[in-house]
């Protein structure tokens, strides 16, 4: 009976120690100011006004792209995309500079005279209230792909925010690097760069790309969104922080599986939309909303087809691009290996495979083993000293 009492006393004492360590003393003041405030939400009427404004912006952008396509002027002395400015008038020297940068960017992409021509509509920032209607969205990039009305013109709409408007008007910030403008133009070309380089895709490829809003064909060049280090996969942040995992698990299961290096996941992520016979709207206007990278089916999908084209070479990519075969067959033929396998290797260039499922950290595992060893030793020691009377 006596040993039992000792053990009970030890257990109660342990509980008391833990309580002493963790419970605050009675009447103790909280350590710092404590807030649990809630910010106001817009009224239903305000939300409706915002929704109508969004719809108007989309319609207005479509209208302007179609109008601009009718009136675009091609300059035979230039090789690059035609540039159309909207908003404040640029001085002629600034226009010439922009055109020169666009031409050199065009050449850097390996493009010259192309069957499908591209036009870049740059909307400069306007002063609030200078035009009727809602304030234009400074992040809504849009593309008007060639269609039966005009088979040889691809239009890209690139809104210039405060920063780029200042640059274009000749007031760049002090540390402005000259190649930033070319990178911006390159990232603004989107699908138009593919049209210029490889012509109109086959129906199956176009339907696949339309179903996924062209998320795997946004950048033809060797750079990411704005250079090598700005890939959409980097926008997830650092795996040490919780928001990284919040970002990962907001993606579709196949995208996450591909990030974990699973072949089936990579295949599904690439071929998402390939089975659907998506109806291609006429005119086909591709819109990229702010935060488009959070809705990608493959990370960093924006450069996927650009990397495929570089890896397999122009001829094989061209045959894929114009192939009437199903996308998975045509892509596997161009890659000369299964789509999932190639994509898995490609993914590893940008991100180490993430670990899925429960996984105890090494430190915690070692600590658990150590505690287990201590417990077993203690029991063994106690048993060895036990006296039988």
């Amino acid at each position, binding site marked *: 009976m006596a040993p039992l009492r000792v053990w009970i006393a030890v257990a109660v004492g342990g509980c008391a120690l833990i309580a002493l360590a963790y419970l605050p003393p009675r009447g103790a003041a909280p350590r710092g100011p404590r807030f649990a405030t809630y910010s*106001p*939400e817009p009224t239903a009427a305000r939300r409706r006004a915002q929704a109508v404004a969004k719809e108007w912006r989309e319609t207005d952008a479509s209208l302007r792209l179609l109008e601009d396509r009718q009136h675009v002027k091609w300059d035979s002395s230039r090789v690059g995309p035609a540039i159309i400015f909207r908003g404040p008038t640029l001085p002629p020297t600034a226009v010439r500079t922009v055109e020169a940068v666009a031409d050199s960017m065009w050449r850097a992409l390996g493009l010259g005279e192309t069957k499908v021509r591209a036009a870049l509509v740059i909307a400069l920032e306007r002063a609030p209230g200078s035009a009727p209607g809602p304030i234009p969205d400074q992040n809504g990039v849009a593309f008007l792909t060639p269609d039966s009305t005009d088979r040889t013109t691809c239009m890209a709409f690139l809104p210039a925010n405060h920063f780029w408007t200042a640059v274009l008007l000749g007031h760049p910030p002090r540390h402005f690097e000259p190649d930033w403008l070319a990178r911006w133009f390159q990232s603004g070309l989107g699908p138009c760069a593919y049209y210029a380089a490889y012509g109109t895709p086959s129906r199956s490829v176009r339907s696949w790309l339309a179903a996924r809003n062209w998320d795997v064909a946004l950048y033809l060049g060797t750079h990411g969104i704005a250079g090598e280090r700005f890939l959409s996969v980097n926008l997830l942040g650092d795996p040490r922080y919780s928001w990284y995992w919040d970002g990962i698990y907001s993606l579709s299961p196949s995208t996450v599986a591909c990030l974990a290096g699973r072949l089936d996941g990579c295949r599904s992520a690439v071929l998402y939309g390939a089975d659907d016979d998506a109806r291609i709207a006429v005119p086909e206007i591709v819109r990229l909303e702010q935060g488009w990278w959070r809705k990608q089916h493959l990370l960093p999908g924006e450069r996927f087809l650009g990397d495929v084209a570089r890896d397999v070479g122009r001829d094989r990519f061209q045959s894929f691009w114009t192939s009437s075969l199903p996308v998975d067959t045509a892509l596997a033929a161009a890659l000369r290996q299964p789509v999932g396998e190639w994509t898995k290797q490609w993914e590893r260039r940008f991100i180490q495979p993430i670990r899925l499922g429960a996984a105890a950290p090494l430190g915690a595992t070692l600590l658990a083993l150590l505690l287990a060893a201590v417990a077993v030793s203690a029991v063994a020691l106690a048993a060895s000293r036990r006296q039988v009377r």
Partner: protein
Amino acid sequence: MCRRFGLLLILGVLASPLFGQDTLISRLRIRADSLLRTWQQAVAIANLADSLERERATIGRDTIAVGALRIITNASPLPVRQAAALAWPAIDSLYGSAAADLAERPYFIRAVDPDSNARRAVLHVGLEVPWDLDLRSTTTLLLTTVPIAPPDRALATWLTGVLRPSIHPREDLGGVYLEFVTAPSQAARGCFMGDIASCIDALGLGDTNHQLERWYPSAPERRAVVTGSFADFFDHGGSAPALRECVAGRDASCTALLRSLPADVLPKPLSDAARVSLVRDALRLGGQDAYRRLLRDPEAAIADRLAEAAGVSVDSLVAGWRNAALAARPAPVELPWWAIGVALGWVTVFAGCGLSSSRWRL
């Protein structure tokens, strides 16, 4: 005749896509115009709804007036009046005569039961806070959400935010002192040593050309900035080799990496808190109308605006601010003499227990 008709028919068929496009453009134009009208109506209705919500937020509520502060809140144990009485002097001393405008910009506070799961109406105006906040927290809430009109873009950009009254002025200046002695920047150290031009540089008030060279003139400083603030950022793609070279000590790589950043991303030697404390000093020196003078000319340089607000030259202002920061040096941790004895006593107790333990038996 038949041939001519055929030709016209062919031309018509060929041109039909263009007519189709015109129809589409007309349709889109009509739709855009219609949406624009709908939007104008929707905005008018939304403005009316917001205004009604503001009116509704005042119904059945008390208006608490302390100085120029107006707080519209529901009856609750939340110590709003006492908190306002504590907050008002701090607000008044910061904004001076501009604080009078707050009479037209009331706080809307909805105090709610923190322990209730009852469904509450959606909040459209003001703040919702649990009514068990203590006086200190409520005062802090009032100070951090002063409904003052936001400053102009230039000042907001330089400050990286909105100017609010200080809750812990002494600790804020102590933080500036720590930045003086720990920032990997010659400008910050120069300021600490008494060079006012360095202070002006470190605060971003002087010539902002060649900021990298002015803030971080030596190679170790540039390396510290890259490895301390941008190691993860540069450790991808094309910049990864340059990062490795920089870490290995190649200054040209560090400089190139830092130059590739936009100017406003370069870490400031002295933080935003230091800038805010300087503005507070300027407003304190300038008296009642200082805040209005600070906002008077949004086109002027920030240094000139601060000097105008304070009523002294920017050099004097910065020198006074630096002296205040030095005076607020955090107190070093001092070990009382008896603590040494206590520590040694505990060591002796544990050592004694360890040495005198005997074999135990259950």
